[in-house]
Every structure is written in C-alpha cells, then in structure tokens.
C-alpha cells in the first residue's frame, strides 16, 4: 500500500495558515472599554526613562523629608527630655507639615512628568490620524478621552501617591507608640487627597493642550508656557498685593486684605495644589512659607480655599471640554 508523500506536501504548503476565518469568540462589555485605552497609555509611557527618573527624584524628596522629620523629632525629644512611652514629645514639625513640604516640593517634577507622558497622548494620535482607528471601533469619544485622561493621571498619581503611602507607613511604624493613630486617625485620607490634587490638575491641562495640536512638542511647550507664565504672574501680582496689604494693615486694615493677596498669589497650577493641600493637611503657613523679612512672615495666612477650589475646577473642566470638542473622526469644513 502506498503512503501519501507527507514530506512533499509539507514543503509545498506555507508554514502559516493563510485562510481568512470569521471571529465568533467572546466580546467584552462596553462599560470598561476606556480601560483598553488607559492601559495602552500606561504601557507606552512606562518604557520612557524620563518618567522613571522623575519617579526616582520624587522618592528622594520624600526620603529627605522623612529623614528630616525623624532627626528633628529626635532632637526635639532630647531637648525636651521626653520620649518615654505614652509621653509624646513636642515635635518641631507636624506629620502633616512634613508631608505637605514633600508633596509641594514634587510639584515641578509632576509638571515635568506630565510633559513627558501627556504631551503626545492625543497630539500624536492627531498626527497619525489614529482617531479614525479609535472612533471606527465601538468606543465613544468619551471612552477615548476618559482612557487617555486616566492613563496619564494614573502615571502622575503613581509618582506622588506611592511615596506618600510610604511616608504614612513610616509614620505608622515609627510613631505608633507615640500615639500617631490617636493624634492623626484620618491622616491617610488627607495625604491621599493632597497628593492627588497636582496630578489631577496637570493631567487635565496637559490633555487639553495635547488635544489642540498635532505636535507633541508644541503641546508640551504650550502647557509649560501656560504653567510657568501663570505661576510668575500670580506670584508677582500676589507679592505686590501682599506688600501693599501689609502697609494697609499697619494703617488699620483687617487680616482679610492680606489673606486676599495670598490667595491671588496661589492662582496657578502649583498655587492651587499647594493652597488646597495646606488646607487639607492643616498646615500653618508661617512654618512653611520661606523668604521675606520676619516681620512680613509673621502676617502670613493660608489662602481662601473656596476660590482655589473654583479655579482648580476650572483648570479641570475647561481643558477637558476643549479636548472633547476637538476629538472627532472627521474634519468639519465650515462655510
């Protein structure tokens, strides 16, 4: 009986199956379709060295603040002669103030990280006509935008939230005997809230600028220019107002004049984050605002929180609204 020539048929046929088959496998629910987009943003950006360098620097800042807290606490304990169990020594710095200083010091790095991971998030898609691919699939503009926003936000939040959690763990493990949990039962929630403000603001603004251009570098430049110009203008205007307010105060004006000036000084991305973190962590501004004559420093107050909340919301809603209007699969010709 003759055997079929297996070897010959194998040689003549292609290695791969080149026929087309219809797909009749499972399809996932639409509810979390945005997660696919977010995951792609995460995968792409986690490969960027710049992101990890920023992360490393942020960890170093937190480490430095934790060490500073630890040593200053020990010095305070020795000076006061305390330290016995159940007899909590007076600390030079509070838990919240130390965390605030760490979070505030990282704000520039968060902005730089936003430039690295967010500038191309939508601009690169605009350049490569990728919106035609996205929007021809069963996802909405909202899914796309939410996915991009969440992807960038999770990266930026990760940079600040993870070290903040480690700082809290340091507090909890080192100062549990000194009544840490009794004194600060909600510090974890406050820290979480304070550490998320800067990532939320930076993500929203970066996404807004990115959606407006086809060039990641241009989007980054616009975002950086906006951030730094607003910071410079608000700082300068706020400082001048503060000086005038102190003079007015000498002439009998109330504390509100000074507080208004300080609020103006906080009308920037960094300012809003700092001001709201200060409020959340119950930080005394006299202990954390550096520079200026001692006489002026004594008059420092925390900014009004409500205007800052309003400005913060504007910095979130407006860019997202602009991005939503800009995202479309077709160019609409008017006229």
């Amino acid at each position, binding site marked *: 009986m003759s055997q079929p020539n297996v070897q010959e048929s194998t040689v003549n046929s292609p290695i*791969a199956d080149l026929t087309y088959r219809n*797909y009749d496998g499972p399809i996932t629910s639409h509810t979390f*379709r945005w997660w696919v987009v977010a995951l792609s943003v995460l995968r*792409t950006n986690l490969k960027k060295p710049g992101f990890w360098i920023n992360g490393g620097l942020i960890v170093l800042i937190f480490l430095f603040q934790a060490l500073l807290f630890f040593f200053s606490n020990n010095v305070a304990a020795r000076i006061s002669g305390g330290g016995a169990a159940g007899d909590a020594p007076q600390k030079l710095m509070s838990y919240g103030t130390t965390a605030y200083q760490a979070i505030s010091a990282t704000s520039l790095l968060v902005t730089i990280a936003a430039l690295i991971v967010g500038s191309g998030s939508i601009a690169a898609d605009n350049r490569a006509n*990728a919106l035609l*691919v996205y929007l*021809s699939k069963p996802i909405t503009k909202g899914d796309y935008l939410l996915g991009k926003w969440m992807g960038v936000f999770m990266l930026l939040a990760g940079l600040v939230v993870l070290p903040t959690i480690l700082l809290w763990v340091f507090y909890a493990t080192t100062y549990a005997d000194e009544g840490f949990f009794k004194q600060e039962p909600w510090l974890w929630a406050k820290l979480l809230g304070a550490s998320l403000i800067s990532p939320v603001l930076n993500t929203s603004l970066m996404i807004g600028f990115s959606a407006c251009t086809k060039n990641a570098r241009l989007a980054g430049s616009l975002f950086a220019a906006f951030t730094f110009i607003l910071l410079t203008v608000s700082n300068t205007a706020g400082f001048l107002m503060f000086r005038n307010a102190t003079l007015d105060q000498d002439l009998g004006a109330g504390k509100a004049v000074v507080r208004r000036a300080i609020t103006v000084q906080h009308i920037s991305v960094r300012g809003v984050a700092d001001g709201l973190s200060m409020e959340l962590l119950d930080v005394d501004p006299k202990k954390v605002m550096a520079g200026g004559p001692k006489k002026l420093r004594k008059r420092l107050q925390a900014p009004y929180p409500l205007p800052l909340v309003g400005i913060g919301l504007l910095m979130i809603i407006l860019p997202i609204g602009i991005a939503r209007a800009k995202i479309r*699969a077709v160019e609409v010709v*008017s006229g």
Partner: protein
Amino acid sequence: MSLDPTGVASVENLTVRYGTKTILSDFSLVIPDGCTGLLGPNGAGKTTLLKTLLGFVSPAGGRGQVLGLDVATQGMLIRQKIGLMPEQDCHIPGMNAVTFVAYAGELAGMPASQAMRRAHEVLEYCGLGEARYRNVETYSTGMKQRIKLAQALVHGPKLLFLDEPTNGLDPEGRDQMLELIRDVSHGKGLSVVVSSHLLPDIERTCDSVLVLRRGELILSGPIDALRSTTGCTVDVELAERSAAFGESITALGGTVGEIKGNRVRVAFVDGTKGFGTLVFRAAKLSGAQVRGFAPAQRSLEDVFMEAIDQ
C-alpha cells in the same frame, strides 16, 4: 415608508451638510450583499456617505440603516459589526504591527488573548506575517495599506468599508490588494463596500456598483447587467482587419461601432432576426474571415462615462 431591509445598508432621503455646504442631498440607495463598488469622481460624496453610515457625521435629514441597525441611534452597535479601512494613512504611534492590530481588536471588545491570536491570523492573511514585529511607522505605503485592512478585519466584521484601498500602491501592490479584497468578499460571509474613483479596481473586485455624482446617486445595479448592451449588438472577431466587412455590414442594414484591432462591434436594428446569418453574409461579401462573435459588453468605463455625461 420603511427602509429597504434587503441590503446590508440603505439610506433614504439622506441630506448631509458640512457647515453651509451640502454634500449629500435627498439621497437614497440600497447597498446589496456581496462586494459593492462606490464609484464617483472626487467630491462626489463617497467618503461622506461612508462616514454617515459609520455614525461619524450626523445627517441634516433622512435616515439610514446598516445591518438592520439605525444609523442615528445605534452607531456603537453598527461599529461593532463593521470594519473601516480609511483612505488616509492611520496608525497608533509607537506600536509594532501585531500590537497595533491586537489593540484594534481589544478596542472592538475582544479579550486581550483572543485579540493577540487573531492579530497574528489576520496579519498572515494580509501578507504581513514576516513584518509583524516591525514598527508601523517604518512600513512602506503598500504595507500601511495592508495593515489598515488587517485592523479593519481583526474583530470579524460582517461588513467592511474600504475607502480608496489602492491609493498610492505600485502595480504589484495594487494587484495583491485587489486579490485580497476579491478573496475576502467572496465566500467568507462578509460584505464589502469599496469606495474608489478607479474603475478597473471596482471592475476587478465588485459584483455591483453605485455611481455617485455631486451628492446624487445616478446609477446602480449589478456590474454584469450594467455592462450588457441593449438590442442586437455583437462583437465580431475577424482573422484580420477588414474595411470591406464594415461596408458590407452597413449595406445589410447594420451599424459598425467601435473597432479594436481585428474586433468589430456590430449593431443591428432591434428585432432583427438571424443577425448571425447577416454577419456571415457580410463576411462572404467582403471576403473577410470570421473567427467568432459574441454578444457585446460595454466596459465599466463606458457605463460610468455615460452616466456621468447624462
């Protein structure tokens, strides 16, 4: 009046405007099963029609259905069942081919593992198996066209929209792309709409055609039916070119049409009986040798030009 449910897609009294410019005006059509060509000169409204069917553009008036789903309210469900190969180059930046196609599958709702398996399959099918791990940005024009087809096919659509699929391809690449389109649209349970202004592409791949001009449907039907001629028109193949044969035909009451080499198109008055006998009689009179004759067929170009000129 209800929309025609027989085709894979249909629109009725559709009007689409971009700003104040009307692109499609009171437009109705039915796209039949199989492979359909959407023909028309540049600016005829082909791409706008596709984008309206996909739900990208909101019509100013009228309505439409795709695979039984309403264009105005069920855009998401429609996009679950269709694939789009856009005219422009499009890819997701920073991805290699297999990641890009798998990602397109995940966007369409496929689980990650299934999307990856399927991405390998469709890339092999589209002839990109060897280049699947290369970054898409490094691809040639032909490869970019193929990957656009692969991302449109990955989730197993029931209807495929191909917008100018042979744009920028060299003759060999064009042949391969047309072969792929022909293959995918026949016997695979998949209907295909090919939008193009290249008549030979449509002629090679499609079974029926819809001709658009300035936002209006001016001609539609199966290509074979459109190409067939009316009355008694035959193409006569002679052994060699003969002017005397034409004169004899005219003398016998026929008309000599287009002459291509040794092939002569001959028309007789409607109702002429025994036109075969007349052809042979003309051959005998002129001394020409007839090799054969068959009912004449017009080229799609003739059909198109005739429709456009009307």
